[in-house]
């Protein structure tokens, strides 16, 4: 049961601690998943910006990225960034912590993005 490492995850939050914490939660069940994060603005303030998100995308070793976020401004920055990168970004409007945890557990188990999307569907709330 090798992990799916072609598909990676990017977490975007207004607050650095939130993505740091979710990373801890995820790493318990998914040590091998390609995971990068953008928490807060580039300057370390509460908020999100495209520059910081682009860094997390560039730093991710996977070719195909599943993206999770907390609030709406992160969503708009993500959409903006989609036009600025060549990597395919898939944004999920699901419960942030619960969706990211589910995705990580399934990538670790070797599932494909298509399979994972089925499990994410009931978590859509945004």
């Amino acid at each position, binding site marked *: 049961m090798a992990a799916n490492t072609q598909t990676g995850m990017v977490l975007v939050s207004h607050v650095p601690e939130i993505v740091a914490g979710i990373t801890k939660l995820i790493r318990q069940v998914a040590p091998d998943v390609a995971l990068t994060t953008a928490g807060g603005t580039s300057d370390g303030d509460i908020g999100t910006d*495209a520059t910081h998100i682009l860094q997390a995308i560039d730093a991710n070793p996977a070719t195909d990225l599943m993206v999770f976020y907390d609030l709406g401004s992160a969503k708009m920055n993500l959409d903006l960034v989609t036009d600025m990168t060549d990597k395919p970004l898939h944004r999920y409007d699901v419960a942030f912590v619960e969706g990211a945890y589910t995705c990580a557990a399934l990538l670790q188990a070797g599932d494909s993005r298509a399979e994972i999307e089925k499990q994410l569907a009931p978590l859509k709330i945004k």
Partner: protein
Amino acid sequence: MNVEQVKQWMQLFSAEIEKNKDYLSQLDTDIGDGDHGNNMARGVKAVEAGLAKDQPTDLAQTFKSIAMSLISKVGGASGPLYGTAFLEMAKAAKDDENDLPALLQAAAAGVAKRGGAKVGDKTMVDVWLPAAADAKQGQLNDAVIDKLVAATKPLRALKGRASYLGERSIGHLDPGAVSTGMLLKTLLQATK
């Protein structure tokens, strides 16, 4: 519209934001997270520094420079929204468009698409879209802009942070609508 006018516009807008920073943040405290004034102030400072550094020579470059500064420095929903407005104007200007109403139209459509908001959702879109339409009719002026901004007050927010408040968002001006009013009024000043 030409490069000098855009620079003039940004100076006027910057001064207006600086002057109203606390007011904008107070509006955002009522129905959001209280940072809109600070976000915009950070943004316009970056715009001025960006223009000084980039030394753009045509309209497209100028709008692009402004867009990138806003996108990377605002740090709130208004960053990608205003950033998209200027990106869309840069794209239009690349096609040799320098007619103000046409540029505004591109900007307004970009903002509405980025945020997925319709007129009436109590966001800056409530100012952008009707103002662009009025500009096309040659009828955009300060009084019209003030009216569009004021009209956000009785609405219930359906997008952005204020939408979490449901009914509680009624009776407050939308902070982004107010800053958009400032952007459009200073545009009129710079191009009159």
